[in-house]
């Protein structure tokens, strides 16, 4: 009798916190749903505002079509058609068949009088440029603002920026060469010396666990990063003591500080320029559909996506990229022979001036 009465009571008492927990979860779920609805409404309104703004920006404008490029602009002396004719081959060679999608994503360019101080209607879409830009500057504008859809989040985060056609391919590769030689990272140094696995590490294409140890394996590198790249960031508040210990040479403090950084904040041994050049190589190797293959499966690891896009293994892709970077070594500092000849010529000329001075004339 006693047990029959108290057992349900005991169970009821024990279950009451769980019931309370259920209530809390329900309440949070309701809040989350409400937040989601609000966010969806905000997105809808933003899209509507963007659509209306685009309508306002494009009404009464001309459309220039070159290849799949569409440029909506106001009448002006800006050499947009000629610039588009120059830019289109570069854009198409990068994006391949995906460049056809640009017909649906026009440039919105407003050419403005650079000498006018008259107030203009402010537009929140497209770009406004002075109409006295020359052909070269206008082509640059088109190449650097290609209205291609942004890449998916993993690819965008890996690239740390956008993918644009190469304007100075040789200089871009030379910059990668300089990074390979000068970056203060053993991974990069190993890559320069021919270790492809180190290249894959330095590019962030391999195993992303223990990046700190992979990128900066020595204590000296970690100390250098903390003391040079993050001196202002760590030399505050609770981090002052470990920062000082790190600078004094205590590696555990350096490692702890670098591990406390938010994800993605650890300096990459090879910058986005190197990564972009690798993607360009993959797209060049992969042919016209390479860009579509690159974007096909955002869930796949970046290395595999690049390999799929290029149609070769990631090792081969990275090896080819490294060889191309090494081939773009900048010109050495040695004087060319013609410069030596010119200098000797000037010495002779000035010596001749000394000889023919009016002081010596009879």
């Amino acid at each position, binding site marked *: 009798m006693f047990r029959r009465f108290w057992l349900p009571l005991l169970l009821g008492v024990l279950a009451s916190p769980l019931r309370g927990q259920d209530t809390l979860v329900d309440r949070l779920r309701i809040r989350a749903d409400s937040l989601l609805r609000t966010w969806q409404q905000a997105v809808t309104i933003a899209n509507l505002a963007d659509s209306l703004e685009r309508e306002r920006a494009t009404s009464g404008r001309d459309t220039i079509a070159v290849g799949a490029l569409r440029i909506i602009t106001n009448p002006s002396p800006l050499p947009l058609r000629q610039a588009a004719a120059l830019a289109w081959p570069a854009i198409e060679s990068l994006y391949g068949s995906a460049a056809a999608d640009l017909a649906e994503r026009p440039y919105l360019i407003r050419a403005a009088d650079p000498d006018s101080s008259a107030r203009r209607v402010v537009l929140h879409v497209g770009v406004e440029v002075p109409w006295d830009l020359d052909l070269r500057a206008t082509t640059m504008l088109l190449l650097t603002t290609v209205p291609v859809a942004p890449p998916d989040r993993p690819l965008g985060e890996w690239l740390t920026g956008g993918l644009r056609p190469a304007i100075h391919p040789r200089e871009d590769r030379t910059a990668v060469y300089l990074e390979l030689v000068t970056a203060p990272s053993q991974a990069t*140094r190993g890559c320069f010396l021919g270790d492809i696995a180190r290249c894959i590490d330095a590019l962030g294409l391999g195993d992303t666990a223990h990046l700190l140890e992979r990128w900066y394996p020595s204590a000296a590198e970690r100390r250098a990063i903390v003391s040079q790249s993050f001196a202002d960031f760590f030399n505050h508040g609770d981090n002052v003591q470990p920062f000082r210990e790190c600078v004094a040479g205590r590696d555990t403090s350096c490692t702890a500080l670098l591990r406390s950084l938010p994800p993605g904040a650890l300096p990459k041994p090879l910058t986005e320029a190197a990564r972009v050049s690798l993607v360009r190589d993959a797209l060049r190797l992969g042919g016209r559909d390479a860009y579509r293959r690159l974007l096909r499966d955002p869930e796949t690891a970046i290395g595999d996506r690049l390999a799929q896009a290029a149609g070769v293994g990631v090792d081969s892709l990275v090896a080819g990229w490294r060889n191309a970077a090494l081939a773009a070594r900048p010109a050495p*500092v040695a*004087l060319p022979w013609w410069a030596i000849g010119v200098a000797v010529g000037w010495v002779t*000329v000035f010596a001749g*001036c*000394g*000889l023919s001075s*009016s002081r010596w004339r009879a």
Partner: protein
Amino acid sequence: MAMFKALLYSQWKWARIIIVLGTLAGFALPALSLQGAARADRGALQAQDLLHAVQSWGTLYPLLAAALGLLVAITTWAPDHRGRHVQALTLPVPRWRYVLLRFAAGMTLLAAPILAVLMGAVLAAVTATIPAGLQAYPFALAMRFALAVLIAYAVFFAISAGTARTAGIILGAIATVVVVQLVAGIANLQLDLVSTMQVVLLHGLGPLAVFTGRWMLVDV
């Protein structure tokens, strides 16, 4: 030859302090620019720091070259100017030959700092631990230094050899350029004489082009 030796000796007496100091500085500069590169604890990861140090010290080479050219050219002519060229006029040689011998003697004296830079650069490059990917260019640096010294010397030799009237004409020409540039600026004219002169003098085939560029003992 005897005349050349006599002139060389006299110029050495006048310019020996400049030559000795220039030689010491030329020998020390490469070693200073690579200081620390030979340390065992530097490791191979400090390529960027090494390049920065070499680049910073590299600015001193053209300054040293210009200073040597200027001072040696001035000391070459200063005693003659002081003596109103009486001694030169009494010598049994044509005037052009006398000037040529003076020029050659000055150039011979300047060989000492040039060789010092070469030896210092070779020594520094051999003893330093240079990271893979970087290379030492001691001969290229010494060649650049030699040409810069000779051009500076030739320019100032020509100016020193000139009369006060010649110097006035040169200064007047420079002043004219500055005044025209100022007037053009006031009149809002698109005229940039200074930049044009800079390009003409310092780039491509310009006489001072060798002073610009990368004075790097170690580079990629």
